[in-house]
């Protein structure tokens, strides 16, 4: 989160994101991505602010937020691990990797560890289908994963 906006109210920060996309056609998606980048998630309390700013109904904004799986209503863990479960990764053991990850972190897909260190998610294809099983960890792609490599990557990430 931007340091200079730390003192700003939620409403002001939301308005700043909206302002940055004012000139774009059909700007709701870019705005929602912007909100999630600013706050880490889309708090239901920003929906009425957005609706007022954009002259939309709350139901419309809510409907869009909930349609897309990227938008989350609560903060994610320090690391987000998105494991690919699509066909090409399944052909090289993605389901086993999912089971391993659930065991290692002690949470199911879609959940965050109690200490807030890791959020585990499923994703259907990352475009790395020749080097599966694939995952995206904090926005970076990884290939040819197994339990050991996954644990190593997260341990390294924690040090850095």
């Amino acid at each position, binding site marked *: 989160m931007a340091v200079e906006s730390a003192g700003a109210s939620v409403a002001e920060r939301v308005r700043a994101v909206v302002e940055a996309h004012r000139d774009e056609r*059909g700007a709701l998606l870019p705005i929602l991505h912007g909100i999630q980048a600013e706050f880490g998630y889309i708090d239901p309390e920003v929906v009425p602010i957005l609706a007022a700013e954009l002259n939309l109904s709350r139901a419309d904004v809510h409907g869009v937020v909930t*349609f897309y799986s990227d938008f989350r209503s609560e903060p994610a863990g320090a690391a987000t691990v998105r494991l690919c479960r699509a066909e090409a990764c399944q052909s090289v053991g993605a389901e086993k990797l999912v089971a391993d990850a659930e065991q290692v972190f002690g949470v199911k897909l879609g959940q965050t560890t109690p200490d807030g260190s890791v959020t585990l998610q499923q994703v*259907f294809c990352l*475009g790395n*289908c020749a080097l599966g099983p694939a995952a995206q960890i904090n926005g970076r*792609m990884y290939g040819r994963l197994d339990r050991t490599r996954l644990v190593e990557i997260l341990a390294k990430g924690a040090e850095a």
Partner: protein
Amino acid sequence: MITVFVPRDSAAVSVGADEVAAAIQREAGDAVRVVRNGSRGMLWLEPLVEVVTERGRIGYGPVSPAAVPGLIEAGMLAGADHELCHGVVDELPWMAEQQRLCFARVGVIDPLSTDDYEAHGGLRGLRTALERDPAAVVAEVTESGLRGRGGAGFPAGIKWKTVLDAQGPLKFVCCNADEGDSGTFADRMLMEGDPFCLIEGMTIAAHAVGASEGYIYIRSEYPDAVSTMRRAIDIAYAHGWLGENILGSDTSFDLFVRVGAGAYICGEETSMLESLEGKRGMVRSKPPIPAITGLFGKPTVVNNVLTLASVPAILADGGSAYAELGVDRSRGTQVFQLAGNIARGGVFETAFGITLGELVDGYGGGTRSGRPVRAVQVGGPLGSYVPAGQFGLPMDYEAFAEAEAMLGHGGIVVFDDTVDMAAMARFAMEFCAEESCGKCTPCRVGAVRGVEVIDKITGGDDRDGNLALLNDLCELMTDGSLCAMGGLTPNPVRSALNHFPDDFSSGAATQKEAT
């Protein structure tokens, strides 16, 4: 100064290319210039390091960061032999035997260098197009026989003509870069490896149909493609390749990147348009077609990345030259993608007509696990499973349709003999249930029921009755769904059932584990 290429492609990065590039720079210091190129598409060799020598670009791979000091010691920077050395990359059969038109520059150039781009034939197509009338450009694309690479295979020239003929002051060109199909990554590799090619193709389309504004809708799962495309667009504006009076012509075109938000259905073109308008990605009924009533109700070209990226070469060298490649009604080249359990996975661009077996067993080298190939899924999650017995099939839209399969976006996912096809059929239904936009009942409810019914079948619960039910359900989804999401999900289900009925008997999976 020695030039060394280390790919920046996210697949290469996924197995350590960034660390390899850093290690080379650290070890060799000022003696080398490290260029971060796209990937050559031989993904099993990634990270593939190439050293420029007078013999050509010598390839080493897969290189790990730890191997770098040893490689340099052994003379890699002079192109010396080594167990990881593959010789001159352009002379490898995998490279030499392709016909790269769309992917001609991917992996060869620095993706964001305008000099490299022009030196390797970039802008020839656009310059040719800008000298001609829009109708003549459309005619050239029609003559090429180019069909949409996003899945449906609709002739690009016909679509463009509809948009050209539609009246109105505002028209759009939208590039579908949602690439949600498992087993496909060519759109991503093109955007990361040769982004100016897509910009050039879209600008040609804009000139051809009279559009002034364009959008590239990229899925959020592709952050590297998003940032590369955005940087390329900024550079293109700075060079007069976008904006007002492109290359000194009367044509003006503004181009923007938009990012999806994790919805497979937004690859369906009308859902994508809704999403671009800032709405839920609900599929629209057709007609009206997007070419007439598209983005914000305006005439709109919607094409896949590879369709648009094929256009510069067509304009540069002529539609008839392109049409000479291929078979029957599948003209030109397709960027095939070998994925899944495959020894040598990657992209292989060649004329339509090559057989499935030549790709999978030949270039692909069979499975990665070393076990026999049992089935491949071609054309993404809505495509059929094809048994190894049908590897004689030519890669051609109509031949595949006749075999009750589909080429789709050209992705081929390989499975070995440990695959449980009932589980794959179940997954197809699960995926449809998860990703359905929810607009029509056969898809929304049918897919959920499909999962339940398959569970009953494999659980041994009234097998015959439930098989009949599954069949009815598939028929209902095929006939009653508004779009191909619900309409084609029965493809993988039925093909799995037809070709591998034994996997659907109760206890099949457990028996399999025992072997």
